[in-house]
């Protein structure tokens, strides 16, 4: 645990920690938990909380603020002269659980050292990442629109009218697999492979199938063909080199096997709606290698909310994607994080449609999903359209055009949305 705290402090300057206080836990009737401002927090706890810091990366702060205001986490308008639109309370740096005798919050290096040496503290441990717990929402919907809201929001149909569809572009798709028989994906899969836990390709290669539903959904968002004149795919002419590299508990070598295979297939774009929680430096050289081979790495940033991110999506070398809804608001669950580094310190790089995304479901059906996993293939598909339009442009140049086209809508925090949402028409103009 100490190694994890040290790693967080080294990369972000702050770390989430749990302090176990030596002060006796109350044996009275269970007290409600609350911030240190709560009346039942004793002087020892109030004294220890001085070592915590309020941080944009504090999940406690973001969640507490959102919960109190009853709305998604959102910063005040950044427009000059605009009144601060903030009716939520100032976030507390720590939360004290009096029935457990623990304090949870964010510390910097000095705070961590002080707490570790304080005689009133029994232990300081790392804190597992908190996740927003969304209510389970089950509702039926029908694929009634001709084009999904996300494709419309990015103004992709304007590129279709120019004759662009992603034809000639091979996109690497590493996920749970893909249902090759789905009407939206027939003809979309150029090659398919399955990798074992040691990164070896299963032989003989099976026909395209999905071990889950995740891969079929993301694949069809990239390159889904129209079904009954209804479009779920951004680049319906692109082809996929798709491989099974995940299905629950995972091995790193499995993902590397898929990446290695995709590189060998000369993909132009690598779309990965996957990642390991936290910041893992070890994949960085591999992502740099993708760039050196002129492959655009489009990776999901994660679904664990503000102050979190996943690797490799949180690397400077990745084009990291967060999620927004149909109003342009950053989804509560969309990860975002600021790192201590000069190059591309804030992730995600941009946000894309990631709420109520309709795409293919194995068995010929369709379903709606929310996630940065759903946002990522929107950008991979957009990149495919642009690469078809300008085949001589490099991956870096295509990325720069996508970034240049991004717009931040009012009242959306740059800390959560970074550059904002891309515009396909503007991106093409910039290339």
């Amino acid at each position, binding site marked *: 645990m100490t190694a994890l705290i040290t790693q967080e402090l080294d990369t972000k300057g702050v770390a989430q920690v749990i302090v176990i206080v030596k002060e006796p836990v109350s044996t009275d009737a269970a007290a409600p938990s609350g911030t240190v401002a709560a009346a039942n927090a004793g002087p020892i706890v109030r004294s220890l909380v001085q070592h915590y810091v309020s941080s944009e990366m504090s999940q406690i702060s973001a969640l507490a603020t959102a919960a109190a205001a009853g709305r998604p986490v959102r910063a005040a308008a950044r427009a000059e002269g605009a009144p601060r639109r903030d009716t939520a309370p100032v976030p507390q740096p720590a939360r004290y659980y009096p029935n457990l005798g623990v304090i949870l919050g964010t510390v910097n290096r000095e705070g961590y050292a002080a707490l570790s040496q304080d005689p009133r503290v029994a232990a300081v441990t790392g804190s597992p990442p908190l996740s927003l717990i969304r209510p389970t929402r089950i509702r039926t919907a029908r694929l009634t629109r001709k084009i999904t809201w996300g494709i419309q929001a990015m103004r992709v149909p304007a590129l279709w009218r120019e004759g662009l569809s992603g034809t000639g572009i091979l996109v690497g798709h590493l996920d749970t697999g893909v249902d090759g028989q789905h009407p939206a994906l027939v003809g979309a899969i150029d090659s398919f492979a399955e990798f074992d836990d040691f990164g070896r390709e299963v032989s003989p290669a099976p026909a395209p199938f999905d071990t889950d539903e995740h891969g079929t959904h993301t694949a069809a968002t990239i390159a889904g063909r129209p079904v009954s004149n209804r479009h779920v795919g951004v680049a319906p002419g692109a082809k996929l080199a798709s491989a099974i590299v995940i299905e629950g508990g995972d091995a790193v070598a499995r993902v590397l096997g898929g990446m290695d295979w995709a590189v060998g297939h000369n993909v132009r774009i690598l779309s990965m709606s996957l990642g390991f929680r936290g910041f893992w430096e070890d994949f960085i050289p591999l992502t740099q290698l993708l760039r050196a081979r002129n492959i655009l790495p489009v990776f999901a940033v994660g679904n664990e909310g503000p102050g979190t991110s996943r690797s490799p999506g949180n690397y400077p070398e990745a084009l990291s994607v967060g999620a927004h809804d149909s109003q342009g608001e950053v989804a509560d669950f969309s990860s975002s994080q600021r790192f201590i580094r000069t190059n591309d310190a804030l992730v995600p790089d941009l946000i894309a449609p990631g709420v109520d995304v309709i795409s293919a479901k194995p068995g010929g059906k369709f379903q709606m999903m*929310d996630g940065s996993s759903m946002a990522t293939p929107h950008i991979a598909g957009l990149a495919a359209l642009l690469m078809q339009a300008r085949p001589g442009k490099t991956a870096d140049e295509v990325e720069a055009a996508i970034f240049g086209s991004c717009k931040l809508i009012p009242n959306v925090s740059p800390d959560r949305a970074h550059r904002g949402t891309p515009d396909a028409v503007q991106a093409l103009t910039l290339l």
Partner: protein
Amino acid sequence: MNRGKIKAKTDPELQRQLEQTASGSHEVQAVFVLQPPGSSQKFLTSDQTLTMVENLLHRLQQETGESPRDYNVFKNLGSFVVAASPTFINKLLEQDEIASAMANRQPGSALIPPRNKRPV
């Protein structure tokens, strides 16, 4: 060839697994990223990767008298995975050819599950 007991950058999970299995006979699986040979070369070619891994494992087999149970090379990524005893893995970590290493088996999942899923 041997950086003299100074280990390559290792992720905490690999360290934990090596400590846990040190006294037992269980193997550890680790993914290694290779260090390009010179300062002017940023990435290894496929051939260089294959050759470097073969030479490295052969050398360590000679030195330790042990062999890895299995290994797999990602020739386009300048990396490889090994299943071997903790002794062998620790020996690999000491080699100049290794830039970094991480456990192949990580806690948690790389799948980013969707937050809501419903039929249409």
